[in-house]
């Protein structure tokens, strides 16, 4: 059993080890090790397109995760009280949003937006001639990408937060209302602290999903390059260890965040409780 577990870990980490090792390659190829060097890190750090791609990815991930968390939590709170057709419709939509493959979401969003933008652009230019120019007023880009990522994240947050609400102690809310707290105050002081772990988990999951998504971004990002799109086109251009360096940095940052948060949590738990 122990041996099997070890084997699985080797399987999981072999490619990652390879990525890290080759990031220090002084040669030009991601498959032929020539010697140890840090030059690809320097190269990645000064490559404007890498920096752009990283910044774009972070903006998109942060925006879509935030939007999804706020709207998703709102919807989850409302849905616990709604019955009837509204609830049925919402449940169905959430189910479909999670079920429909990313590739279908990407393609259908692309053709829908292209068609809608086509109509709207003609109308806009006709109404406001100042908008006429070589570039149409509406085009694929940040907004479409963030919107598409938010859709999936929204469904994710609603599912996670609802599960938490279902397990929540409702007597506290009733008590708070009995004490004449305003609904807002009840939410802030009673509900929110209880559902916060789920809200945060939803945010993190959404952030991670958005950061690593390729298939949706590939179709709806327009001219914007995110990190996965950059890596995909690098695979086509011919991979240099620069890609490995980027991968290693992403891994290192995630590990630091992970262990940092673990440490903080442990310290939080360790604090003596006041009675």
């Amino acid at each position, binding site marked *: 059993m122990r041996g099997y577990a070890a084997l699985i870990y080797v399987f999981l980490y*072999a490619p*990652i080890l390879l990525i890290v090792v080759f990031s220090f390659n002084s040669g030009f190829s991601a498959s032929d090790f020539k010697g140890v060097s840090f030059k690809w890190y320097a190269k990645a750090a000064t490559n404007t397109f890498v920096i752009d791609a990283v910044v774009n990815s972070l903006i998109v991930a942060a925006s879509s995760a935030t939007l999804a968390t706020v709207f998703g939590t709102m919807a989850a709170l409302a849905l616990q*009280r709604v019955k009837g057709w509204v609830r049925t419709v919402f449940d169905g*939509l959430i189910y479909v949003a999670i*079920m*429909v493959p990313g590739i279908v979401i990407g*393609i259908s969003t692309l053709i829908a937006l292209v068609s809608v933008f086509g109509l709207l652009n003609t109308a806009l230019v006709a109404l406001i001639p100042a908008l006429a120019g070589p570039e149409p007023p509406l085009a694929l880009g940040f907004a479409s990408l963030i919107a598409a990522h938010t859709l999936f994240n929204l469904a994710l947050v609603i599912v996670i937060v609802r599960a938490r609400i279902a397990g929540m102690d409702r007597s506290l809310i*009733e008590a708070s209302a009995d004490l004449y707290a305003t609904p807002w105050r009840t939410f802030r002081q009673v509900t929110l602290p209880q559902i916060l772990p789920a809200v945060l988990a939803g945010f993190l999951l959404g952030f991670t999903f958005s950061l690593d998504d390729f*298939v949706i971004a590939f179709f709806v990002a327009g001219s914007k390059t995110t990190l996965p799109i950059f890596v995909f086109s690098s695979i086509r251009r011919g991979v240099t260890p620069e890609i490995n360096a980027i991968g290693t940095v992403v*891994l290192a940052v995630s590990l630091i965040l992970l262990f940092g948060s673990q440490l903080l949590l442990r310290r939080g738990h360790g604090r003596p409780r006041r009675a």
Partner: protein
Amino acid sequence: MRNATGPSPLLTAVLLAPGALWFLGLLVLPLGVVIVFSFGERAAVGGYQAAFVLDNYLNLPARWTAFKNTLVLAPIGTVVCLIAAYPLAYFLAVKARPETRTALLILVIVPFWTSFLIRTYAWMFILGGRGLPSLIEWAGLGEVRFINTPFAVLLGIVYAYLPLMIFPIYVSLEKLDKRLLEASEDLGASPWRGFMQVTLPLSAPGAVTACMLVFILLMGEYLIPQLLGGGKVFFIGNALVDLFLQSRNWPFGSAVAVSLVVIMLATVSVYMRFAGRIGGARDVSLV
């Protein structure tokens, strides 16, 4: 006493509005457009031209192999993932020492935090001619080829989705009361029987959920067959991308997309009904 649980309908509407808007604009509208387009015709230069024809659906058998590959490899990939993940989840939940358990669990998620594409690229190298095959040849075990085979795609699938499979199983096994196992042993049952009669049924809901999660993702897979299958192992996802990015046949692509979604909804509902008997419907439900 004020009514705490029944806020005004207005508040409910306001809370639901942004989410509803999002679903409407980015799910209902795009899927609606795809359904409408699937009855259209390809414009002469590519793209969509309004029409009402069934040709695109009648033409679906032309993608039979892609559907077949997906419908065969997605369940196989799911089952292989399950077989690979279960012992590890069991080990983590039952056998691992509590001190190392958290660390080992974290180690399962960490690979998720390097770019999926970069990890898959690493596999392209490992499975390519200069990787494992050259080692095998050097060891005198003959000439083999991994890359661009269904094996490579399957391996990529297991690699990518193993952590997703491990977690839900781990969570349900963790709830397992070890006294139950002890009791079963006290009653003279063999460890194997204890496992079959106590552990396995208890972990079923987790396994059922995990399988569904992985299966859903596999049905729409595009990147793994693209990168590790080299255009030789085609999934529906690949056929779809091809129709939009090469043939520019939006109506036919839309028909393929609609069929994929319908097949998925059908398979998953059947699966849930069937699995509900094993694990209890509540645990299996996604929403």
